[in-house]
């Protein structure tokens, strides 16, 4: 009996060793697609870009750029495989670049569905809307960043720390796409002349391009989303036009400890949101009109007014386009569930009708090191 077991055991190991499975894939045979870029060309054909690092000391190019025409990401991978030396794997992707022209097509999201379905892919790549040709970003060699994918990633991650753009990974995009009370907002980069971060791009509920926000508006949006960051705000005070190229009509400050309270009510057939926001600010530059103000409460009152104006402007903008990047729908669902259930299939329309009030309460922490 014992001999029989031992013999069968050995036999099993032998078959296991001889079976053609478990063939390892060596690192040299894998090309890591660090950037995935998708765009439409002038004739509305899909183009895919990718870069993979070259692991060779003293190689002329540190990463190789590929550009193919294909119908889907999967198909593009086959095309990449037949051009590159290794098998392409998107498990280490860092950024996903989507051309602005493609974003105009509401079906673009179904293209990246494969990235969610595949167990091997990561959900952490930052998603970026690209205004201008993607090839510019792929072919630019940045000097202090060896790999351009890393450059794009760090542009977004560091700008996010100051609240200049939203930071949305694939996982977060999935949430924003599928939640009915929320519309997506992604970072945007312009490549027309130079590679510049321009702010954020808002999409509508189907994922179609809706509107672009500049850095200040992105900052306000992040505040409304309740993100805890060290914001840096530059608010233009539009009093009179100046001819001098050095503008002095700018109120600059750093804001932190942003706390937000959203009250949701349903009155007279429409939703009523009152947003209370409090924050501590550090003033870094004051416009000349502010210099005469000596009492702190009055200064705070003025800043409150300026901020409130900016918020109202932003909210009007998004209400007009029936989008909800703030996620007010989540609050409506949580606090006015019965009413929300009735309008949830067309939340944008309900949001357009609703009243949104913002009141800002600023506490000045310091006026800066010098007067």
């Amino acid at each position, binding site marked *: 009996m014992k001999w029989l*077991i031992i013999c069968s055991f050995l036999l099993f190991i032998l078959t296991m060793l001889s079976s053609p499975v478990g063939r390892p894939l060596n690192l040299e045979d894998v090309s890591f697609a660090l950037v995935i870029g998708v765009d439409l060309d002038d004739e509305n054909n899909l183009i895919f870009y990718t870069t993979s690092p070259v692991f060779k000391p003293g190689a002329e190019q540190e990463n190789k750029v590929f550009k193919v025409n294909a119908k889907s990401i999967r198909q593009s991978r086959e095309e990449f495989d037949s051009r590159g030396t290794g098998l392409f794997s998107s498990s280490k992707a860092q950024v996903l670049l989507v051309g602005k022209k493609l974003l105009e097509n509401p079906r673009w999201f179904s293209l990246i569905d494969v990235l969610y379905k595949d167990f091997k892919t990561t*959900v952490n790549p930052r998603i970026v809307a690209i205004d201008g040709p993607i090839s510019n970003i792929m072919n630019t060699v940045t000097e202090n960043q060896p790999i351009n994918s890393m450059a794009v990633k760090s542009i977004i991650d560091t700008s996010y720390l100051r609240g200049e753009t939203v930071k949305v990974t694939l996982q977060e995009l*999935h949430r924003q796409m599928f939640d009915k009370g929320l519309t997506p907002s992604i970072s945007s980069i312009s490549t027309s002349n130079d590679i510049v971060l321009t702010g954020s791009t808002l999409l509508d509920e189907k994922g179609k391009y809706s509107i672009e926000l500049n850095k200040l508006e992105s900052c306000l949006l992040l505040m409304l989303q309740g993100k805890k960051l060290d914001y840096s705000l530059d608010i233009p005070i539009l009093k009179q036009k100046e001819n001098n190229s050095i503008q002095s009509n700018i109120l600059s400050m750093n804001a932190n400890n942003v706390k937000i309270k959203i009250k949701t009510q349903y009155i007279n057939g429409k939703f009523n949101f009152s947003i209370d926001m409090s924050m501590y600010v550090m003033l870094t530059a004051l416009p000349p009109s502010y210099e005469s103000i000596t009492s702190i409460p009055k200064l705070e009152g003025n800043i409150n007014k300026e901020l409130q104006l900016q918020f109202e402007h932003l909210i009007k903008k998004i209400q007009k386009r029936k989008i909800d990047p703030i996620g007010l729908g989540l609050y409506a*669902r949580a606090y006015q569930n019965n009413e929300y259930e009735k309008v949830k299939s067309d939340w944008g329309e309900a949001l357009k009708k609703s009243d949104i009030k913002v009141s800002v309460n600023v506490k000045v922490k310091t006026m800066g090191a010098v007067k």
Partner: protein
Amino acid sequence: MRNYIGNEITLMQYIFLIHGIQVGAGVLQLPRIMAEKVGMNGWIPLICGWLLSSAASLIIIQIMKKNPQSTLMDLMTTYFGKFIGKISSILLIIYFSIVSFTLIQKSILFIQVWLLPGIPSYIIMFLFSVPTYIIARNGIRIISRYAELVFFLMLWMPLFYIVALNQNHHWVHLLPLFKNIQQGLMATGSTIVSFLGFEVAFLFYPFLKEKKAASLGIIIANSLSLLVFLFVTISCFLFFSPDEITQYYEPTLSMLKVVEFRFIERMEIIFLAFYLFILSTTWIPYMYSMAFCTKWLFNKGNAKNYLLLSLIFFIVIMYFVVPTFPGNDLLSEFYEKIGVIFFYVFPVFLLIYSFIYYRIRGRITK
């Protein structure tokens, strides 16, 4: 009556044995199932399921109390005669073999899709069966010690969920707290199967050293499992939006995909490898129970030989029938139905019968 002395387990081991069986592969899919059935009120059926399972466990302990030295099969023999006793052991063997097969198959499927694509399932089954045999052949005491060790080894696991939640969490997802209580109560049926595992008390009660604390121990085990289920479900609800969570098959794992450190990415893969320990505390006791019942049925031989035979049998099945997720789901549905009938409904009748039995016998002996 047979003698089970010489392999006793302590109260702690008994708690962790039952808790280990309850928490297994089900946790990976539980948040999705809860969200599908009751949306974000998934905690209601969990608590109801806990109440029901605790009640069922207490009933089982009450039944076992009257004959502290006998297992379920011995009890059936005393109450209904030899024939019914044998039938009950055959039914238990069938139940335990289906459960352990399903659970091992499920673990293999998870490992295949997340960790080892391209390795055939029979090879993974072979690799699983070596440690399973080494642990389970020594009997219930070693299995319980293993369960206890695994519990303490895996205490760090919730930390990863907190790291993931730190990146992204929304408390508003949970509100309104009492949206659909009625649906919540209706969905209790799908949570009571998650608590299956206390039924091993039917077999291993005679081995317990401190029999007085048996009821307390089984309640603690159930509550520990409830805590784990609640923790996992609520973390997933905080992380995923209510509209998207139903799209993930295993939200418990998908959630960890966002965990990324400067020095390491793809933490969910390492996590799943560790999770194998937790999965193993489910199937090892079940496989041993199967061998234990087989030994009782034939009343000869050694449990470890039956264990070895069944492991080899499993490898052979895996070789010929390639496991798939839909097939596995069918199997689990099947065993869950049997489990509910056997261990939630049947004990009530058995308890009533034992009352009547002792009444009548008491009268006769007078």
